[in-house]
C-alpha cells in the first residue's frame, strides 16, 4: 500500500511536470523554437539562454518545450489509434469466436511475429516519415498487442458465471457483451494503455532519432538527440537534456502504470 502511494505520487509528479511543460509551450516559449540564428551557435547555458543554443543557434529550452508538445501529442494520438483498432478486433474475436476469431487471430499472430518497432519501420517505408505517418505506423504496429489483451480478457470474463447468469436471465448476447463483459475489460486496457504510452514515446523518439520520425525543423526530443550527436564533445548538454526529459517522462509513465496495476489488478480483490 505504501509502495502504491509512492508510485502514484512520484509518477504523477513527473508526468504532471512534463504535461505542464507541454501545455505551457502551447501558449508560450522563451524563444521561437524553430527560428535559427547562426551567430549564436552552440552557446553554453546563460541567463539569456537557460540551456544554451544548438548548432543552428536555436534556444534549447524552447525546443525542449516544443518537443514535449510533439512527443506527448504523437503518443496520445498513437495510443488512441492502437486502442480503437485493437479493441474492435479483440472484442470481435473474443466474443464472436468461431471463424471470425480464427481469421482475426491468424492475422494478429502474424503481425505479432514482427517485433513492434520493425513493423513500424516497414510501415514507415511505405507511408513515408511525417507526423501522421508515424501515428499511423506506430498505431498499427501496436494494435495487435491491444487486440490480444482485449481478446484474452473477453475470453476469461465470458467464462465467469455472471455472464452465464445473464444469459440464463434471457438477456441478448449484445446486451450481455455491453453490460457485463465490456466494463471488465476496462482495467486491463487502462493498464495496457499506460504502458503503451511509454512504448510509443520511446519508439517515436527512436524513429525521430533515426531521422524517420517527425521531420525537421519541428522539434522532437528524438531528432534533437540525433542532431546533437556530432557536437557531443563541445556541447554535451545538447545530448543530455532531451534524453533526460524522455527518461523522466518514461519513469513517470512506468510508475503510474505500476500504481494502476496494483489498483486495478483483479487478483488483489475488487
Amino acid at each position, binding site marked *: 500500500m505504501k509502495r502504491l502511494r509512492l508510485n502514484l505520487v512520484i509518477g504523477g509528479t513527473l508526468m504532471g511536470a512534463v504535461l505542464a511543460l507541454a501545455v505551457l509551450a502551447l501558449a508560450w516559449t522563451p524563444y521561437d523554437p524553430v527560428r535559427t540564428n547562426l551567430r549564436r551557435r552552440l552557446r553554453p547555458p546563460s541567463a539569456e539562454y537557460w540551456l544554451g543554443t544548438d548548432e543552428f543557434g536555436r534556444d534549447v529550452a524552447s525546443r525542449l518545450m516544443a518537443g514535449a508538445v510533439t512527443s506527448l501529442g504523437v503518443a496520445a494520438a498513437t495510443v488512441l489509434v492502437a486502442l480503437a483498432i485493437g479493441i474492435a478486433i479483440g472484442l470481435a474475436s473474443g466474443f464472436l469466436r468461431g471463424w471470425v476469431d480464427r481469421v482475426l487471430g491468424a492475422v494478429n499472430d502474424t503481425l505479432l511475429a514482427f517485433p513492434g518497432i520493425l513493423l513500424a519501420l516497414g510501415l514507415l517505408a511505405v507511408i513515408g516519415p511525417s507526423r501522421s505517418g508515424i501515428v499511423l505506423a506506430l498505431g498499427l504496429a501496436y494494435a495487435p498487442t491491444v487486440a490480444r489483451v482485449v481478446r484474452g480478457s473477453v475470453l476469461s470474463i465470458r467464462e465467469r458465471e*455472471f455472464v*452465464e*447468469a445473464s444469459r*440464463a*436471465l434471457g*438477456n441478448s448476447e449484445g446486451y450481455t457483451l455491453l453490460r457485463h463483459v465490456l*466494463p471488465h475489460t476496462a482495467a486491463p486496457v487502462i493498464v495496457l494503455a499506460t504502458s503503451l504510452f511509454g512504448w510509443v514515446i520511446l519508439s517515436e523518439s527512436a524513429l525521430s532519432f533515426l531521422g524517420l520520425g517527425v521531420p525537421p525543423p519541428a522539434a522532437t526530443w528524438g531528432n534533437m538527440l540525433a542532431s546533437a550527436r556530432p557536437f557531443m564533445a563541445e556541447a554535451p548538454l545538447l545530448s543530455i537534456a532531451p534524453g533526460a526529459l524522455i527518461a523522466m517522462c518514461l519513469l513517470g509513465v512506468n510508475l503510474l502504470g505500476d500504481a494502476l496495476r496494483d489498483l486495478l489488478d483483479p487478483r488483489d480483490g475488487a
Partner: protein
Amino acid sequence: MSLLEVAGLRIAAGARDIVRDLSFSVAEGETLALVGESGSGKSATARAVIGLLPPGLRHAGGRIALAGQDLSALPPATLRALRGPGMGMVFQEPMTSLNPAQRIGAQMAEGLALHTTLDAAARKRACIAMLERVGITDPERRLLAYPHEFSGGMRQRIMLASVMLLRPRLLIADEPTTALDTLTQAEVLALMKELAREQGSSILLITHDLGLVSRHADRALVMQSGQAVEEGPAAPLLAAPRHAYTRALVAALPRRGPARVIPPAPPLIEARSLSVAYPGRGGWFRRAAPMPAVQSVSLSIHPGEVVALVGGSGSGKTTLGRAMLRLLPASGGSLLFGGQDVTARSGPALLDFRLACQIVFQDPYSSLDPRMRVRDIVAEPLRLPAGMAPADRLARAEAMLAEVGLAGLGDRFPHALSGGQRQRVAIARALVRNPAFVVADEAVSALDATVRQQVIALLRDQQRKRGFACLFVTHDLGVVEEIADRVVVMQHGRIVEEGPRDQVLDAPAHDYTRALLAASVRLQG
C-alpha cells in the same frame, strides 16, 4: 508426555491478532482435530506449528514445543532437521502442493536424501515400496512421471507417501481431503489413518467437517475467531456440546426433513433421451471427436417438486443441469417444457422459457457481476418481462432483498458482502421473477456449515412458499436429506438410480449409490 505442546500461541496479521492465547497438546499416537469455520485461525495455527506462516502472518507469542524442544528457540538448521522426520505436513490442494516441474520420484526421494543416510538405490526402493503402499499401480514406472499425469486423489496419495516416507512423529493435515470427491475423500483419509497407526505418528487434523471429526479424531478442539471455545474427547464433545458455538455447529449438520407428497400433475420439464457432448478441440482443418458428457438421459420434474441430482465429479450432473436450462445445447434427444418442445427454440421464441427458469450457481464470488450494486443485480431480471417501470423494478428488488434477509443492503457491491450474503443475493436474483423451475448447482457447497444451514433453510422456505420446481445438483448427500423429495443418481453421464428420497437413501439399489452413501461422513452413533 505430550508430543506437541502449544501454550499461549498468538499469531498476528499486522496489528490484528488472528489467533489469541491458544493452548493445546497432542499425545503420542493421538489424533487431535482442530475444528472451525473459515477465519477461525485453524490453518494459521497448523502453519505456525511447523514454522511456515505465510507472508503477512507473524508468530507473535507463545510456546510451541515438539517432544519437549521449544521450536521457536531453535536455530534454523536444527528446525529444518526436525521438519520431515519430526513433523510432516499434508496440504489441502493436491493440484498445487506437488512441484509441477519435478518428477514424482525426485520429489519423494529428496526428503530421504536430506534426512537419512540411505544411498540412491535404497532411496528408490523405499519410494517404490511407499507408492505401492498408498495404492499407486506400477510404482517403478510412475516414479518418472510428473504430477500433472495424476488425478487429484492420486496426487494426494503421492503427497501422503512423500510425507510418510520420513516417518514423521507428528503429521499435520490441513483440510487434506476438502478438495477431493466424496468417494476419494473417504479412501485418502482411511489411508492416512492407517499409515499413521503403522508408524505410530500423531495427527493434527485441521478440518471444518464434523463428520470427519467423529469418524477419525480422538480429541477435538473447536476454534472460533482465533480462540479455543471447547476442547475434549471427540465423541462426547459432539454428542453433548457445551459451548453455544459448538452447539450451533452440531445443529448445522443436516437432518432429514419430513417426506412430502407431491400432488400428481403432468411434468413441468422433461428431458427425453437427452445427450450433451462437448465439441472436440478444433484446429483449422479438423476437429477432434466430441466428448460425450450426458448420454441419453430421461428425467422429468413435476411442478413444486425438489429433485436432487447426485454424483461425483465427472458424472455429468452439472452438464445435465445446464442443459435442462438450455445453457448448453443438446446433441441428441429433446427437452420439453410444459409439454412444448423447446430443444431447438432460439431468440424471442426462447424468451418465454428463459423467463420461467432460473439458476443459482455454486460460487457466489463469480456469479455476481462485481461492478453492479446488489439492488441492480436483483432488479436486472425484471428488465425483460415488458411493462414494468424502472422505479417499480427497484422497489420489487428491494422487497425481494428484504425477503432473503438483506434489507437495507441494496447499495452494497458484492465484494462488500460475506459469502452467505452473496448467495442470498444470487437466490434473490433467481426468484424475483417468480420462476416455475430453478436449477441450484451446488448452491451451498462453497459455504461454511452454519451459513450453509441458513441458506438451505432460506431456499426451502422460499420453495415451500412459491412452489417452484427445483433441480438441486449436488455431491453432498447431507443436503439431499434436508431438501429433496426425489433423488436421481448419475455416474459416467447416465442415470443409475432414481426414486423417492427415503427409498434411495435407506435402501439404495445400485452399487455406486451404496458407495456414495458409505463414503459420505455423518456423525456416528
